C-alpha cells in the first residue's frame, strides 16, 4: 500500500494561475537573456548604420565642388610676344605666366560698381581661384592656339578654402586665423555668388582627375586610382581564376588521399588566414627586391592580391564542385567518357555559376585590400595616368583604398572629405560586384 503522508513537511500551496517567486525569477531571467540578444543584434545594426552614415555624411560633398565662371582675355602680349603662333614659342610660357590673365580678368570685373571689397587687391581676388586654374588655361591655350587674342569663358575650380566656406568647413572666424584666406576674400566670394559667377555643382573631376598636391585639395581626383585598381583586378582575374579553378579541380576530382594532398590542403587553409600585411612583405621581398619588378606598379599589386585571393577562390570552387551530384559523373563515365572528359565537359559547366560567384567575392575582397599595397610602394604620389595596357601594368599607379589612406595622412581638412568620397566610390564598386554575385547565384544556382 502506498501511504501518502498528509502530515509531512508543510507544502507551499501553489496554483497554476499565479506564478510563484521562483517561476517569476526564472521568467525574468528568460526575458533578460532575450533582451541581451536583442541588444547585441541592435549594436551590430547600429554599427552598420553608423559606419555607412558617417561615410555618406562626410563624403557626399566631395562630388560637388565650387566653381567660378570668368571671362578671360587671352592676351597675345603675354602668351605669344612674337606673334608667330608657333606652338614651341607658346609652350615656353609657364603656368606661372598665365596668372596675370586671371588677375586681369578680376581687374576688369572690379571696374563695375557691384564688385569690390575694401582691402582685397586684384591679386587676392585671383587667389580665390585654385592654382590649378592657371594650368587649366595653359592646357586650353596649347590645345587651341588660335584662341589667343579672344575672350573665352572658363569655369575654374575655386580654391579649397572658398569651397570649404560653402561646405561649412571654413567660417569667417576661422578665416581670420588662417594665413591662406581672409574674411574679405570670403565676402568677395559671396558677392560673386550673388552675381551668379560662383556656383557649387557636380564635379566629374573627382572621378577623372589625378591626385593633386597637399595645397590643392580641390583639384585632387580619383582617376589614376580607379585605373590602377582596374588594372590590378584584371591581373587578379587573369591569374587567380584559371590557377584557382585548376587547383580545385585537381584537389576535388583527381587527388589521391595521401600526404602530398594533405600538405596542399593544410597550406590553402592556412594561407586563407595569414594576415594580409604578410603578403605585402612577400611582394616586397620577392617581386620587387628579387625579381626587380618596378615599385608601385599594378602588376606587382595584382600579383600580391592574386596570391591573397587564391585561397578564397579555391575554397569557393571546391564547394561548388562538391555540390554537383556524383550521378552526373557516373552518367558521363557510364557512356564512355574519360574522367577528364567527365569533369571538363559536365561537372565544370554545372559548377560554373558557383565558381563565378566565389571569384567575384574574392575580387571584391582584393579591391578593398590596403595593407599589402602600402608595402609595395603604392603610397607614392602619382600624378601621371598609367599608359594603356600592356605597358601600363608596369607604370606607377595608385589604388582606390590606398588613395583613401594617402588622403587621410594630409593636413588640410578638405582631404577628409575627399577620403570619405573615395570610400563612397569604393563601396559603390563593392556593392555592384556583390549584387552581380547574388544575381548570378539566384539566376543560375541549381538545387539537386
Amino acid at each position, binding site marked *: 500500500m502506498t501511504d501518502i503522508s498528509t502530515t509531512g513537511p508543510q507544502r507551499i500551496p501553489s496554483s497554476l494561475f499565479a506564478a510563484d517567486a521562483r517561476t517569476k525569477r526564472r521568467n525574468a531571467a528568460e526575458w533578460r537573456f532575450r533582451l541581451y*540578444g536583442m541588444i547585441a543584434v541592435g549594436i551590430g545594426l547600429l554599427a552598420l548604420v553608423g559606419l555607412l552614415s558617417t561615410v555618406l555624411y562626410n563624403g557626399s560633398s566631395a562630388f560637388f565642388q565650387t566653381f567660378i565662371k570668368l571671362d578671360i582675355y587671352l592676351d597675345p602680349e603675354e602668351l605669344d610676344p612674337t606673334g608667330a603662333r608657333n606652338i614651341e614659342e607658346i609652350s615656353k610660357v609657364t603656368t606661372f605666366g598665365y596668372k596675370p590673365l586671371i588677375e586681369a580678368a578680376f581687374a576688369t570685373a572690379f571696374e563695375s560698381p557691384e564688385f569690390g571689397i575694401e582691402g582685397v587687391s586684384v591679386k587676392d581676388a585671383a587667389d580665390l581661384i585654385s592654382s590649378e586654374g592657371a594650368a587649366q588655361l595653359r592646357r586650353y591655350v596649347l590645345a587651341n592656339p588660335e584662341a589667343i587674342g579672344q575672350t573665352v569663358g572658363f569655369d575654374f575650380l575655386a580654391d579649397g578654402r572658398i569651397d570649404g566656406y560653402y561646405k561649412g568647413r571654413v567660417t569667417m572666424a576661422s578665416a581670420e586665423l588662417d594665413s591662406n584666406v581672409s574674411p574679405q576674400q570670403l565676402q568677395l566670394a559671396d558677392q560673386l555668388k550673388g552675381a551668379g559667377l560662383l556656383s557649387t555643382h557636380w564635379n566629374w573631376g573627382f572621378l577623372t582627375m589625378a591626385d593633386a598636391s597637399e595645397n590643392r585639395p580641390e583639384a585632387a581626383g580619383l582617376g589614376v586610382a580607379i585605373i590602377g585598381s582596374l588594372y590590378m583586378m584584371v591581373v587578379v582575374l587573369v591569374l587567380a581564376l584559371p590557377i584557382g579553378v585548376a587547383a580545385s579541380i585537381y584537389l576535388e576530382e583527381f587527388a589521391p588521399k595521401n600526404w602530398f594532398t594533405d600538405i596542399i590542403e593544410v597550406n590553402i587553409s592556412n594561407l586563407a588566414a595569414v594576415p594580409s600585411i604578410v603578403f605585402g612583405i612577400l611582394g616586397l*621581398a620577392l617581386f620587387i627586391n628579387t625579381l626587380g619588378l618596378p615599385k608601385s606598379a599594378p602588376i606587382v599589386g595584382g600579383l600580391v592580391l592574386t596570391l591573397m585571393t587564391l585561397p578564397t577562390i579555391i575554397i569557393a570552387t571546391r564547394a561548388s564542385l562538391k555540390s554537383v551530384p556524383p550521378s552526373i559523373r557516373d552518367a558521363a563515365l557510364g557512356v564512355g567518357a574519360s574522367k577528364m572528359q567527365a569533369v571538363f565537359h559536365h561537372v565544370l559547366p554545372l559548377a560554373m555559376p558557383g565558381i563565378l560567384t566565389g571569384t567575384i567575392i574574392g575580387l571584391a575582397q582584393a579591391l578593398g585590400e590596403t595593407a599589402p599595397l602600402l608595402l609595395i610602394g603604392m603610397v607614392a604620389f602619382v600624378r601621371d595616368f598609367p599608359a594603356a595596357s600592356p605597358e601600363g601594368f608596369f607604370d606607377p599607379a595608385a589604388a582606390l583604398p590606398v588613395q583613401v*589612406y594617402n588622403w587621410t595622412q594630409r593636413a588640410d581638412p578638405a582631404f577628409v572629405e575627399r577620403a570619405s568620397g573615395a570610400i563612397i566610390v569604393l563601396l559603390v564598386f563593392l556593392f555592384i560586384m556583390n549584387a552581380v554575385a547574388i544575381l548570378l547565384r539566384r539566376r543560375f544556382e541549381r538545387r539537386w
Partner: protein
Amino acid sequence: MSVGLISLIILIIAVLGYVAGRARAVQSAGGDIRRLHSLPGYYGQTVMLASAVPAFLVMILWLLVQPLYIESRVTSLIAPADIADGSSRALVMADVRRISDGLDVAVGQGAMTEVDLDRMRADISDVRGRLALVGVAIGSDVEQSVFVAAKEYRQLSGTLRWILAAVVIGLALAGAAYAWTRINKEFRARNVSERAVKALLILCSVTAILTTVGIVASLVFETLHFFRLYPARDFFFSSTWNPQFRGGSDLGIIPLLWGTLYVSFVALVVAVPVGLMAAIYMAEYASRRVRSVVKPAIEVLAGIPTIVYGLFALITVGPLLRDYFAQPLGLGTSSSSVMTAGLVMGIMLIPFVSSLSDDVINAVPQAMRDGSFGLGATQSETVRQVILPAALPGIVGAILLAASRAIGETMIVVLGAGAAAKLSLNPFEAMTTITVKIVSQLTGDTEFASPETLVAFALGLSLFVVTLGLNIIALYVVRKYREQYE
C-alpha cells in the same frame, strides 16, 4: 624583343601546331576518323601542349633567374669608391638599372645612337643632363664606373633577351615537331594529352605550397640578415622601441607586442559578447523573417574593407572618445588610442564571431534541446546550460580565429591606434602595434641594408608565427568538435 611578343609567337606556333596535328591524324586515318584511336582534336592538343607548355615554363624560369644572374655579373664592375657614404651597393645597383632603362629610352627616341653610347664617358659628358632631356630623372651625378656598369647591364640584358627568344621559340618549334612526328592513327592521343593536363592541374595546386614557401623563405632570410646586424636578445627582450635612422636604435618588440595584445584584447571584449549573443539570438529566438533580414545585414559588416573602418576610427570614433571620455576623465588628449582602435576593430570582428558561432550553435543536435525542454527548462536555461557547454570548443575556436584576425589587422590600427611605442595601462593613450611598425618601417624610400628596415621582416615573422599558431590551434579545436557530433 619583348616578352609579350615572344609569348604571342609561341601561341601562334601552338595554334598552328594544333591545326597541323589534327590534319596529320585525319590524313593518317585516310580521312575516316573512326579509325583513329582518339577524337582528332586530341591529336591537335598533344602538339599544342608539347609546344606551348615547355616553352612557357622555361620562359618563366628564365625571367626569374635572369635578374639574379645579371646582378652578379654587373655588381663587381662598380668601384667601391663610387659607393657614397650612407649608400649601399644595392642602392647603386638601383641607379644602374635606372640609367640602363634611361639609355634604352634615349636610344629608342633617337636622342643618341648606339655608336654615341659606346664612345660616351660619364666623366666627360653629362649623362644625367642628357637623360633628363628624354624624361629620365637620375638622383645624382653619374660616376664613370657606375656608367660602365649600366652599359654592361643594358648590353647583357639585351643579349640575354635575344638568347631567351631564340631558346624559347626553338623549344616551341622542337616540341611541336616532335609531337607532330609521333602522330599516327594508333597513337593514344587522348591518354597523352589528359596526362599532360593532369600534370598542369597538379602544378597549379602546388602554387599554394610555393606561396607558403615564398613567405617563409623571404621572412626567415631577411630576419637572419637582421639578426646579424642587431642582437636577437635585444629584439625579443628590450622594452624600448626607438629607431634612429643614423644608427644606434633600440628595436625591442615588447612595447609593440604589448600594444598589439592590448588592442586585440579590447577588440575581443567588444566582439565576443556582442557577436555571441547576436548568434544565440538569431539561432534560437529570432523568427525566420527577422533572421532573413538581420543576418545578411550583419554580414555586410564583414564585407566592408578595413580602410573604411580605419577612416571611421580616425574621423568619428577617435574624436568622440576624446571629447566625451578621455578629456573629461583626465585620461588623455589624443584622439588615436588603444580604445579607439579596439572598439572599431571589435565592430569589425562582430560578424566574424557571430557567423562562426552561429554555425557551431546550429550544429548542436536538436535532440539535446528537446531533452532539456522536456525536463522543463526555459529557453535561456537550455542555451546556457546545454547548448553553450556543448558548443564550447567550437566557440573557443571561433574566438581564437577572431584573435588571430585582430592581431594581424593593419589599417584600423594604422589610422586609429597611433604611432608611439609605449608600455602603458591607460587605454586612452596612443600606442602602437607590430603591424603599424611594419608599415612605417617599410614604406617610403627604404634601404635594405639597415637594421631599421630589416626589423620589419623580423616583426613580420613574429606576426606570422603567432597568427599561424593561433589558427592551427583553432582549426584543430573546431575539427575535434565537429567529429563529436557527426
